C-alpha cells in the first residue's frame, strides 16, 4: 500500500462514513468517541495498515499511521493526545514482547482496550532513571510496590506498560511489564489539572502480583525499552499533533481581526517549521534510519509552536481565555504543558548540546 493510494482511499471512506463526534466534550465523551473511531477504522482496515501482520496489522510502511492520524486530527474525529497514545505503547510491545504479549496488540488498535504508560514517579520526573517502584521476584510472579504519577488515562486503562526497578540503582536495574489494571493492589486516583481535563492519574501499586511472562523483554531491559519509544512518539505522534495545531490556526483565522497579519504569520511560520522537520523525521524513519537525538529538535519546535499559537490566540481574541466559555481556555492552558511533558524543553536542549553539538559534559 502506497501513501497516496492509502490517503485517497481513506478520504473517500471517511467521506462516506461519518465518524464526527456524537458524544459530549467531557473526557468520558472523548474516550467513548475514541473507541468508536478506532473500532470503525480497525474493522475497515485503516487502523491496521502500517502495523506488522504478526501483531494483527496488515503490514505496509509505518508512515501510513501518520497519514491516518493526520486525517483523524484534521477532521476532528478524536482528541489527538489520547488518539496518539497507541503510538507510544503498541510499538514497544511489538519490538520487545513475546508472542503471547503480541496477542494483546489488536485489543489496543481496535479500541477494545485502553492502556496507560506507567513511567513518571513523584521522585522521578525528568530524571526518570531514578525511579523507585520495585518489582521483586516471587516464584512465577513479580510483586510490585510503588507509585506512578502523570499516568494518562489510567482510570480508563485495562493495562499498564510499567517501568519498575528489579535490581540496583541506575538504568540497568529497570525492567518493563504489562500489568493488568484490575489486579488486586492497583489504586488509581485521577489528578485534577489546571486546564480542567483530568486525563492524568496517580497510580499506586501495593503488593501487585504480576505473572513472570508479563515482563516485556528481559530483566534489566526496561530503560532500553523506554528509550525506544521516543522515535515512535516523535514521528507519528508529532505529525498528528501538528495536523491538530493547523486546525486550531484555521479556527483562529476565522476569527482574527484586521491588523493581526504579523502575529498570524509568525505563528504559521512556527507550524511550517515543525511540519518541515517532522516530515524529514518521517522520511528518515521510512528509510529505516535509527532516530535519535535529532528528534529533540522536533520536540523543541513543536512545543514552542504550540505555545506561540495559543499565545497568539489570546493576544488576537482579547478575553477569550479569561472570560468566555470556549475551547480556547482549556487549550491555552493545556499548551502550557507542551514544554514539560515528554521531556522538558530544558532536557531537550541538554540533549541537543551534548549529542548534536558535542559540547561534552556539563
Amino acid at each position: 500500500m502506497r501513501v497516496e493510494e492509502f490517503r485517497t482511499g481513506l478520504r473517500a471512506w471517511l467521506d462516506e462514513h461519518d465518524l464526527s463526534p456524537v458524544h459530549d466534550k467531557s473526557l468520558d465523551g472523548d474516550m467513548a468517541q475514541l473507541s468508536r473511531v478506532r473500532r470503525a477504522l480497525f474493522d475497515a482496515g485503516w487502523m491496521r495498515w502500517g502495523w506488522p501482520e504478526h501483531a494483527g496489522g496488515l503490514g505496509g510502511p509505518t508512515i501510513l499511521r501518520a497519514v491516518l492520524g493526520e486525517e483523524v486530527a484534521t477532521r476532528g474525529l478524536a482528541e489527538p493526545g489520547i488518539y496518539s497514545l497507541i503510538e507510544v505503547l503498541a510499538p514497544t510491545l511489538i519490538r520487545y514482547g513475546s508472542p503471547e504479549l503480541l496477542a494483546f496488540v489488536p485489543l489496543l488498535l481496535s479500541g477494545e482496550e485502553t492502556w496507560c504508560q506507567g513511567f513518571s514517579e513523584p521522585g522521578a520526573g525528568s530524571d526518570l532513571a531514578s525511579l523507585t517502584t520495585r518489582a521483586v521476584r516471587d516464584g512465577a510472579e513479580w510483586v510490585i510496590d510503588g507509585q506512578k504519577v502523570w499516568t494518562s488515562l489510567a482510570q480508563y486503562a485495562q493495562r499498564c506498560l510499567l517501568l519498575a526497578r528489579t535490581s540496583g540503582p541506575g538504568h540497568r536495574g529497570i525492567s518493563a511489564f504489562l500489568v493488568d489494571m484490575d489486579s488486586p493492589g492497583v489504586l488509581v486516583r485521577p489528578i485534577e489539572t489546571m486546564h480542567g481535563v483530568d486525563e492524568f492519574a496517580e497510580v499506586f501499586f501495593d503488593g501487585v502480583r504480576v505473572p513472570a511472562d508479563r515482563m516485556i523483554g528481559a530483566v534489566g531491559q526496561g530503560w532500553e525499552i523506554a528509550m525506544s519509544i521516543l522515535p515512535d512518539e516523535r514521528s507519528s505522534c508529532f505529525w498528528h499533533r501538528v495536523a491538530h495545531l493547523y486546525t486550531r490556526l484555521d479556527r483562529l483565522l476565522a476569527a482574527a481581526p484586521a491588523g493581526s497579519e504579523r502575529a498570524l504569520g509568525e505563528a504559521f511560520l512556527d507550524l511550517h517549521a515543525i511540519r518541515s522537520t517532522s516530515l524529514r523525521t518521517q522520511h528518515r524513519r521510512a528509510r529505516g534510519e535509527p532516530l535519535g537525538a535529532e528528534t529533540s529538535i522536533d520536540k523543541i519546535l513543536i512545543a514552542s509552536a504550540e505555545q506561540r499559537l495559543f499565545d497568539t490566540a489570546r493576544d488576537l481574541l482579547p478575553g477569550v481565555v479569561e472570560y468566555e466559555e470556549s475551547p480556547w481556555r482549556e487549550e491555552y492552558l493545556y499548551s502550557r504543558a507542551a514544554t514539560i511533558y515528554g521531556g522538558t524543553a530544558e532536557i531537550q536542549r541538554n540533549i541537543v548540546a551534548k549529542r548534536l553539538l558535542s559540547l561534552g559534559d556539563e
Partner: protein
Amino acid sequence: MIDAADLTLLSTGFRAAMEEPGDADRLDAALVELGWRELLADSPDEAVALVFPLLGATGAHAPLLNDVLLHALGRPPGGVVALAENGLAFGRPCVPAGGLDPALGLCRVEWRPLGEEAVAAGRRALGFQLVGAGRAMLELAREHALTRTQFGRRLASFQAVRHRLAETLVTLEAAEAALAHATDPTTSTLGKALAGRAGLAAARNCQQVLAGIGFTAEHRFQSFARRVLVLDDLLGSAKALAEDVGGSLLATRRAPRLIEL
C-alpha cells in the same frame, strides 16, 4: 539532473575557490571556470542548494544571486538585476561600497519588476546563504565555548551557554528543513523567513557566547553578523515576510498545509 558524486566533486572545488584569498570578481570568474553557469542551467535547484550554503559558510562573496534571478527570468547569466524598487543590486564588477557590509558591493541599477518565480528563486538562494552563515557563526561560538575557560571550567560546561547554542542549532535546522521543501513561491517565502530568523538568532546567541572577542574587528564573527543582517533584509526580512504571509492567511482564512507525507 546531476548525480551525487558530481555534486560532491563540484562542492569541493567551489569551496576551495571561496576559501582562497581574493576579491568577489576573482571568485565570480573562478566559479564560471568551475562550471557554475552550466550547473545552474542544468540543475538550478541543486546548484542553488549547493553553492549558497557554501557562500554563507565561507563568508565569501560573488554576485551569483544575479545569475539565479536571471535564470529564473529566462535571461543569460552574467548581468546585474535590481532586487527592489530602490534599485539595490549586487554590483558586477563588485566595487566595495558603503553600508553595513561593504564587501557585498551593493549598488543601484534600474528597477524592473521581477515576477513571482524570480523572487522565489532569489529567496530560496538567500535562505540557503543565511543558513550557511548561521552555521559558521555557530561553529565559531562552539569552538570558543570548548576552549575558553572561566571560573576553572570550560564555557561549554555552563548550561546557559549550552542552551543558547542548542537553540541556535534548532532554528537553523528548522530553516534548512523548510528550504529543502521550498519548491514554489509560498514555500520559498517561508523558507527565507525561517532562514532570516535563524541567521538573526545565530548572530544574537553566538555574539553572546563569543562575548568580548566576538566584538572585535579582528574576529571573523563580526563579518558574518554584518552579512546576515543584510541577507535577512534582501528580498524581504523575516519580519516583513511573516507579515506578508499573515496577510495571505487572513485573506483566505485558512492555513495551507503545503507539504505532505
